[in-house]
C-alpha cells in the first residue's frame, strides 16, 4: 500500500503532480484552488525533483508558459478556477491546435462573471465542447474524491501525452477544498528523453528544424489538420471512455452525475431504494470522451434518466443526445454555488421522473 495522507483535494493534486514527474507548474492565485500553488511552494519541488514552479503575472501568461514548456516535450501543468480558466481559453485552443500535451486543473466555482467562490459544475460546456475558438476537444477527467484528484493528475499527464492533447481535470470547489484520506503513488522519475520528432530541442546538423505552431495559412492543409484532430478525438472515444455504475443492474431509473454531485447522488440512491424506487447511478469519469454508448444501451431498458448537475443543465444535453429520444431525460440541479442535498435530489427524482 502506498503512503496514506489526509489531504485537501487541491493539495493531493499538487503532491501527485510532483510524484507523476511533472517538469513544471505555472499558475496564478484564484479561490478555490490557490492551495495547489501554495502546497507546491511549501514543498519546494525544485529540491525534490527539479520541477519548475513559477507564479505568473496572470492566468494568460501561465497557460502560455505551459505552451512554451510543452512545446519542448516537458510535462507541464497549470491550475485555476472558472474565471481564470476563461482567461486561459485562448492558450488552450493554441495548445490543442499545436497538439501539445499538458494538464489543466479547473476547480470550478459558480458563475457567470465573477460569480461566487462556492462550488459549481457550470463549466461543463466550456470544458467538454472546446471552450476556446475552433474545433477541438480536451480530454476531461471528473474526480469525485480526493483520491481521484491525486490519481487523475498522473492519468491526465499520461493521456495528454498518449494523444498529444491537453487534458483537463474538471473538479469543483467541494472536491478541491475537502479533506479525505488519500493513498499516494510512488514518486516517478521525471522524463529524461525528449526524442519525439515534434519536440523542440534545438536543430542539430542531422535533422531538419522543428516548428510548433497552430497556424497554416493554406486552407487545404488546415482542413487536413482538422480532420487529423477529429480522428484523434474518435480514437479517444473508442479507447478512453471511463465511468462507474452504482446499482444500475436492476434500475428502472438512472441518475447521471459526476464529481461532487455523484457523491450526493450515491446517498439519494440509498434513500430512493429504501422507498422502493429502483434507482441507479451512472458516474461519467471521462466527460470527454462521454460514455454515450453505455447510456444508449441503458436507454433501451430504463424508464428514464435524471442528469444531476450543479448547473442549469449542461451535461443533460449529452445524455439526451446519447438517449436519442428512446426514453425520458430530465435535469435537476442547484446553481450559483448552492449544493443540492440528497433529499432535494430525491424530490427532483420523484417530481420529474418517477410516475
Amino acid at each position, binding site marked *: 500500500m502506498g503512503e496514506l495522507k489526509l489531504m485537501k483535494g487541491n493539495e493531493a493534486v499538487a503532491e501527485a503532480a510532483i510524484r507523476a514527474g511533472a517538469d513544471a507548474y505555472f499558475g496564478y492565485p484564484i479561490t478555490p484552488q490557490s492551495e495547489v500553488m501554495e502546497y507546491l511552494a511549501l514543498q519546494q519541488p525544485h529540491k525534490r525533483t527539479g520541477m519548475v514552479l513559477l507564479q505568473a503575472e496572470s492566468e494568460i*501568461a501561465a497557460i*502560455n508558459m505551459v505552451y*512554451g514548456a510543452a*512545446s519542448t516535450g516537458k510535462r507541464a501543468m497549470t491550475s485555476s478556477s472558472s474565471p481564470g480558466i476563461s482567461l486561459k481559453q485562448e492558450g488552450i485552443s493554441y495548445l490543442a491546435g*499545436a497538439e501539445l500535451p499538458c494538464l489543466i486543473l479547473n476547480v470550478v466555482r459558480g458563475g457567470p462573471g465573477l460569480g461566487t467562490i462556492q462550488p459549481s459544475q457550470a463549466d461543463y460546456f466550456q470544458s467538454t465542447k472546446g471552450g476556446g475558438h475552433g474545433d477541438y476537444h480536451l480530454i476531461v477527467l471528473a474526480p469525485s474524491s480526493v483520491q481521484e484528484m491525486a490519481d487523475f493528475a498522473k492519468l491526465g499527464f499520461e493521456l495528454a501525452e498518449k494523444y498529444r492533447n491537453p487534458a483537463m481535470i474538471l473538479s469543483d470547489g467541494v472536491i478541491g477544498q475537502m479533506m479525505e484520506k488519500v493513498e499516494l503513488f510512488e514518486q516517478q522519475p521525471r522524463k529524461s528523453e525528449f526524442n519525439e520528432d515534434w519536440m523542440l*530541442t*534545438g536543430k542539430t546538423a542531422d535533422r531538419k528544424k522543428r*516548428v510548433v505552431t497552430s497556424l497554416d495559412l493554406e486552407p487545404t492543409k488546415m482542413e487536413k489538420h482538422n480532420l487529423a484532430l477529429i480522428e484523434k478525438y474518435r480514437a479517444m472515444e473508442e479507447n478512453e471512455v471511463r465511468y462507474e455504475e452504482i446499482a444500475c443492474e436492476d434500475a428502472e431509473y438512472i441518475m447521471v452525475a459526476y464529481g461532487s454531485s455523484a457523491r450526493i447522488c450515491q446517498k439519494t440512491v440509498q434513500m430512493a431504494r429504501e422507498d422502493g424506487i429502483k434507482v441507479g447511478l451512472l458516474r461519467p469519469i471521462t466527460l470527454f470522451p462521454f460514455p454515450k454508448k453505455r447510456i444508449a444501451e441503458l436507454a433501451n431498458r430504463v424508464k428514464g434518466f435524471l442528469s444531476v448537475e450543479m448547473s442549469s443543465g449542461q451535461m443533460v444535453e449529452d445524455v439526451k443526445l446519447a438517449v436519442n429520444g428512446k426514453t425520458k431525460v430530465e435535469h435537476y440541479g442547484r446553481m450559483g454555488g448552492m449544493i443540492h442535498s440528497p433529499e432535494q435530489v430525491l424530490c427532483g427524482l420523484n417530481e420529474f421522473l418517477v410516475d
Partner: protein
Amino acid sequence: MDIQEIIQPENLVYERTQCLTDATLSYCPGCGHGVIHRLTMEVIEEMGIQQDTLGVASVGCSVLAYDFMNIDMTQAPHGRATAVATGIKRCWPNKFVFTYQGDGDLAAIGTAETIHTCNRGENLLIIFVNNGIYGMTGGQMAPTTLPGMKSSTSPYGRDVELMGNPINITDMVSRLPGTYFATRQSVHKPGNVRKTKKALRMAFENQKLNKGTSIVEIVSNCNSGWKMTPAESNKWMEEHMFPFYPLGDMKVNGEMVEKK
C-alpha cells in the same frame, strides 16, 4: 571581364547563413524584417549555437519567421511570446531563447508579459521590431504610432487627445531591475546594420552569462503601411521616428546609460 566571369564561387565574399532557410521571404520589398532576420541568424551561426537556440515567433508580419529561420521554433499567441519563452527557458536554462515581436504584439496586447518578463529578469532576448503600425492587418494604429501619424484607424492622424499617446516601452522596461541590456537600433543604413548586429551579439552573449533580460528594439520602416516608397519611408523614419524613438543604448551591463 564580363559579369559571368565575375560571378564565380571563388569570388564569393558573402553568402546566406546556414541558419536561414532558402524559403522566399514573405515580407514586402523594402521592409527591414529581412535584414533583422539575417542579422539574428548570422549571430547564431557565428556563435555556433544553432542547436542550442529556440525561437518564439509572435503574431504580426513576422508570424511566419519560423519558415525563414533555420532553427527550432514555436509560434506564440498574440502578445504572449515572452510568456512562452519564459516557459521554455525555465525548463531549459542552458538553451538560448529569443522572441521576435512587433510593436502591436509587444507593446499593446502583450504589455503585461513584456513588463513582467523583464521584471523577473528572465534570461532571454526580446527582439522588438518597432515600425509604429500594425503591418500584417493592413496598417492600423499601433501603440507606437506617432502623434499626428496617419494609419487606417487614425486616417486623419493620431489625435492624442482622443487616442492616447504612443508608448516608449523599451525606455520603460530598461528601468526595471531584471533588464540587463536595453538598446534601440535601426537597419536602414550599413553603419546601423553593423550596430544592430553588435547589439544582438551582445544580447546573446549576456544570455550565455545568465545576466537577465536583454531587449533589442529595432526601429524599422513599413513602407506598405506608411504608403511610401522604401526610400521615402527610410527618410521619413529618420525625420519622424528617430526624434521620438532616439537610437542608442539605454542600459548596458545592468547600468542605465547617461543621456548627454
